[in-house]
C-alpha cells in the first residue's frame, strides 16, 4: 500500500492544533517551563556561588558543562518522563471512546498514515517545548563561554528519549478507550525502561549486559556527557520503531473485531 505524506500531514497538523484547543498543551508547556526555568536558575546560581568561592581559594573553576548543562538537561529528561504520558494519552483513546476513529478508518487513510501522523503531532509539541528552552544556551553564550558540543548532544539525546516515551504512549493509547489508563500505563512502562539497569547489579553477567542495554537511561548518559554513538542512535530508533509498529498492529486489528 502506498504511503501519502499529505494524509499524514493532514492528521498531524489537525492533532497539533487540537493540543492548543484543549488546556493540555498549555498546562504541559507551562508546567515544563516553570520547572525548567527554576532548575536553570538554581544551577546558574549554584555555579556562580561556587565559582566565587573557588576564585577566592585559587583552585580550578567549575565548567559550565559540568555545573549547568549536564545537570539541567538530565533533569529535563526526567521531566519528560512525567509529562509525555499527558501528551500521548488521548491520541487514540479519545477517538475510540468518542467513536471518531470510524472517520479515519473509513476515509482513504492507511493505518501507517494515521499512526505516523499522530506521532508526528506529539513530536511537534515536544519540539516546541524544546525550542522554548533554547533560551538557556543563549543566556549561557551571552554571559559566558559554554562548550556548545554537549548542548547539541543533550538536545539530540532528550529528543530521542522523548520520542521513545511518545511511541510507548501512542501504543498504550491505541490499546485503551480510557485515557487515564493509557497515561498510567505509559508512565509505568517509561519508568520501567528507565530503571531497568538497576536490576543488573544483582543479576548474572549475561543478563546484566542485556538489562543495561535495554535501559533508556544508560543510553542517555552518553549523550549527556557529549558523546554520540551510532549504537545508541540505533537503540533509540529501534525502540521508537517497535512502539509504532505495535501501535499499527493494534489499530489494524480493530477491523477484524466486532
Amino acid at each position, binding site marked *: 500500500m502506498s504511503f501519502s505524506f499529505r494524509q499524514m500531514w493532514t492528521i498531524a497538523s*489537525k492533532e497539533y492544533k487540537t493540543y492548543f484547543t484543549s488546556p493540555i498543551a498549555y498546562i504541559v508547556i507551562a508546567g515544563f517551563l516553570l520547572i525548567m526555568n527554576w532548575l536553570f536558575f538554581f544551577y546558574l546560581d549554584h555555579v556562580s556561588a561556587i565559582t566565587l568561592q573557588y576564585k577566592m581559594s585559587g583552585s580550578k573553576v567549575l565548567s559550565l558543562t559540568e555545573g549547568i548543562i549536564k545537570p539541567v538537561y538530565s533533569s529535563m529528561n526526567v521531566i519528560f518522563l512525567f509529562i509525555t504520558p499527558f501528551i500521548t494519552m488521548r491520541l487514540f483513546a479519545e477517538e475510540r471512546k468518542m*467513536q471518531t476513529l470510524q472517520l*479515519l*478508518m*473509513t*476515509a*482513504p487513510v*492507511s493505518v501507517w498514515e494515521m499512526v505516523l501522523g499522530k506521532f508526528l503531532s506529539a513530536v511537534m509539541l515536544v519540539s516546541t517545548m524544546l525550542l522554548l528552552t533554547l533560551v538557556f544556551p543563549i543566556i549561557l553564550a551571552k554571559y559566558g563561554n559554554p562548550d556548545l558540543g554537549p548542548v547539541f548532544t543533550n538536545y539530540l539525546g532528550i529528543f530521542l528519549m522523548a520520542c521513545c516515551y511518545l511511541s510507548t504512549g501512542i501504543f498504550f493509547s491505541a490499546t485503551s478507550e480510557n485515557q487515564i489508563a493509557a497515561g498510567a500505563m505509559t508512565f509505568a512502562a517509561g519508568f520501567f525502561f528507565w530503571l531497568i539497569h538497576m536490576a543488573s547489579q544483582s543479576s548474572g553477567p549475561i543478563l546484566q549486559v542485556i538489562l543495561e542495554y535495554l535501559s533508556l537511561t544508560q543510553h542517555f548518559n552518553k549523550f549527556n556527557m557529549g558523546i554520540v554513538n551510532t549504537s545508541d542512535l540505533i537503540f533509540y530508533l529501534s525502540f521508537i520503531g517497535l512502539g509504532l509498529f505495535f501501535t499499527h498492529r493494534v489499530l489494524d486489528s480493530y477491523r*477484524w473485531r*466486532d
Partner: protein
Amino acid sequence: MIEVSGLTKIYGQRTAIENLSFNVSQGEIVGFLGPNGAGKSTTMKILTGFMPATSGTAKIAGFDVFDETMGVKRNVGYLPEIPPVYFDMVVESYLTYAARLHFVPKVKLKSAVDRALEKTGLTHVRKRVIGNLSKGYRQRVGLAQALVHEPKVLILDEPTVGLDPVQIIEIRELIKSLKGAHTVILSSHILPEVTATCERIVVINKGVIVAQDTIERLTTRMKQGLAFQMLVKNSNPVGIEALRAIPGVKSVLAESGVQNGKISIEINPNQGELRDRLLEVAMKGNLGVLEFGSEKLSLEEVFLQLTTTDQANNGGQS
C-alpha cells in the same frame, strides 16, 4: 453502483450476516430495513471497506471492497450510527479536515465545505464548536462530513435516530434531495423512515434478506390481500372446516357457533386470486355471508410479518 453477492460475516461463533445479495443502481435510494441486531451495521461496515467479510464479494463504483479498499473509501461517504465528530472542533474546520482526508484538492476545499454546509443547512453555525451544538445539528454535521467530498455512494447508518420529529423531517427531505446525484443506502429499524425516503427496500432479519422490492410493489402485493375478513350470519363448524380445506389458505380464525360471527382468513403469500373460491365455499357451507373484505395490511404489518415469521422458523437453530 453497488453490487453485493453472497456476502457472509461470521464473528467467532455468531453469524452476523449470511449470503446477502443485492444490487443498487446509480442514483437510487435504497432502504435497509430490519430490527435491531439484524446485521445492518455489519453490512454497512463491510461496504465502507472498514471491515472485511468472511466470504462473498461486494463492489462499490467498480471497486472491490476487499482488494481496492482505497478506491472504495474515496468514493463512499459514510455516516456511522454515532456521528464521528470531534466535540472540540469548529464545524467549518471539522469539515475541512474531513474533505482533506478524502483528497479534496486544496483549491476546492473552501467551495466543497461551503456546499456541504449549505446542503445540510449548517451555514449559520459554521463557526460554532461541535460540542456545543444540539444532537440534531451534530447529526447534520456528520451528514455534511459524509457529503463533503461529493462521493458517488452514500452509506447512512440510522441517520435520524434520536432526533426530534421536526429534525427527522428535515433530514429526510435532505436525503431525498440527494437522489440522482448520489446513490444512497440508508439503514433503519423504523419503517416510516424508509417509506418516506426510499424507493426500494431490502428487508433483513437475523442476517438474511427476507424481502426486497420497490415500496410500491410491496404495498400493492399487500393490498391484494394476504388476509380477509368475513362477517357471517351462521358460523357453523362445517363451513369453517371447508374454508380451512381450500388449498392456499394458511389459517382460519373463527368465532364458532355464534350469530354474526367474524371469520379471519389468512392466505399464503403468492397464492394469486382466491376470493372467488372463498366466497363459493362459504356459500356452499351455508355460512350466510354478510360482509366480505380484505384486511389491509400496512407495510408495518408486512414488515412485522416478514421478520417475525422468520424468527419463528429460525427459532430452533439459534
